[in-house]
């Protein structure tokens, strides 16, 4: 089993070097081979478990509480503009 590393890297928004792509392909196919062991187990009648605590619908009252100030929230941002996070343009006009 091989992973289409370039495709998955695009999904994960990661830029990989050609060497990383090659290394990961080899290493991850060995790991996927190891996963094959699980196919030995018949799990047809087993319910998946995603939450081992058994807790359900944990929520608090919908009341405003103190939280980070705008100043604190922006403190580590590399680029800010008028009290907002500044991001690169997502849509660009075609000239």
């Amino acid at each position, binding site marked *: 089993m091989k992973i289409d590393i370039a495709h998955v890297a695009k999904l*994960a*928004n990661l830029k990989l070097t050609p060497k990383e792509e090659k290394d990961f392909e080899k*290493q991850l196919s060995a790991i996927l081979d190891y996963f094959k*062991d699980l196919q030995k187990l018949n*799990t047809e009648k087993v319910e*998946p478990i995603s939450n*081992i605590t058994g807790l359900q619908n944990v929520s608090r009252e919908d009341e405003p509480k103190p939280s980070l100030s705008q100043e604190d929230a922006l403190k*580590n941002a590399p680029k800010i503009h008028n009290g907002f996070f500044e991001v690169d343009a997502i849509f660009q006009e075609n000239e």
Partner: protein
Amino acid sequence: MIDLTQLTIKEAGEQLKAKQVKATELTEAYLDRAQKFNKKLNAFITITEDIAKEQARKVDELIADNQQLSPLAGIPIGLKDNYLTNGIKTTAASKVLEDYIPVYDATAVTRLKDANVVFVGKTNHDAWAHGGSGENSDFGNTLNPYDVTRVPGGSSSGSAAALAADMCMAATGTDTGGSIRLPASFCNLVGLKPTYGRVSRYGIVAMASSLDSIGHLTKTVYDSALILNATAGHDEMDSTTSTEAVIDYTQDIERGVRGIKIGIPKEYFEGLDAKIKKVIMDAVKKLESLGAEIVDVSLPHTEYGVATYYIIQPSEVSSNLARYDGIRYGSGREAFGSEAKRRIILGTFTLSSGYYDAYYLKAMKVRRLIREDFTKTFEKVDCIIAPVSPTLPFKFGEKANDPLQMYLADIYTVNMNLAGVPSLAIPAGFIDGLPVGMQIIGPDFTEKQLYQIGFAHEQEAQLYKERPKI
């Protein structure tokens, strides 16, 4: 004059209370060693000298004022650098967060501050807690004080090395698949992986959210219980924390093991290195001679643990690391190291369209079977004793180029995270000068009993008195 850096937390607390030692003196003694040995071991990413001195001064004032204080007041500890600390750089040992200064504290940090502990610094670890050796840190390897050519175990590598070398009296860790127990085992320390949900994950850099357990490393079992007393409990900022009552974990710690049924799971001993097996079985015999009953048990799905874990964990990693976009804080995604990239790719793949059922869904089904192995076994016995690591501390570079071999080092530790059950790693002995650990595993929320069993062994073995020659 007593050597302050040879005391347990319990002993130091008594000396502070009796005004025989000042918190500032205790802190100075540990800061000195931290500064001196960090050059050699690279256990700390940041040493917070000014903060430590200020915290210690405050404790001295409170003691002089005869205030009632926590038994942890004035105790110098290290914090793994994935615990968010308000105003103190927190890197998760990754270049992505190299300059990140949090604006709030993790709940565990808040609770330790409330107990008036002293922060010596932030400890090194595998970046994002990904690894079993410490070699994945973007800030260099941490060395094992017992043999500097060998790894201290990971991912809480710096916490273990700093503590074993007496650069602090305890250190915090995170255990997603063994990251507290493995370094504890490699450095002759006590490491607690609490029940999932016992200690809040809020403000701790998330690795795999359904597996992350927030614990700590100490020299002794009693000291471990003292720290859990401070950190355990429900937190409305982490919806997976339990409302189960927090008890005094030090109470009745001297109860002993008379009448306790200890299960020995065959899957954890078949094929185990003969020398390691002997060390652990000798420790089990010691407990038997103290009145415990030893019972053979079987956890039949043990062999599927690593495969199940290395599907679920990278899946959750890929999701948690998706937030690092370099917009609100931190650098961009190009700053991730190789291991983080490898796990993001693997996890993105196992969650991707067409493969989800074959990998992630399958793993979640096997996870239920693994949890049921434990719940069924605990109908017959009070606890299970197992090895922590299949090998002794290994050499640097030995497994670094073969991720699968590195992942298989987790073979005895991942199942407890999948099942959510608590596990206490304690020193079992030495082979050729290298530490060997074992783990005592119990049903959900039985940390108190694990401490009683660990304490009984510790009183006999006294391994915490051993010190590395550095």
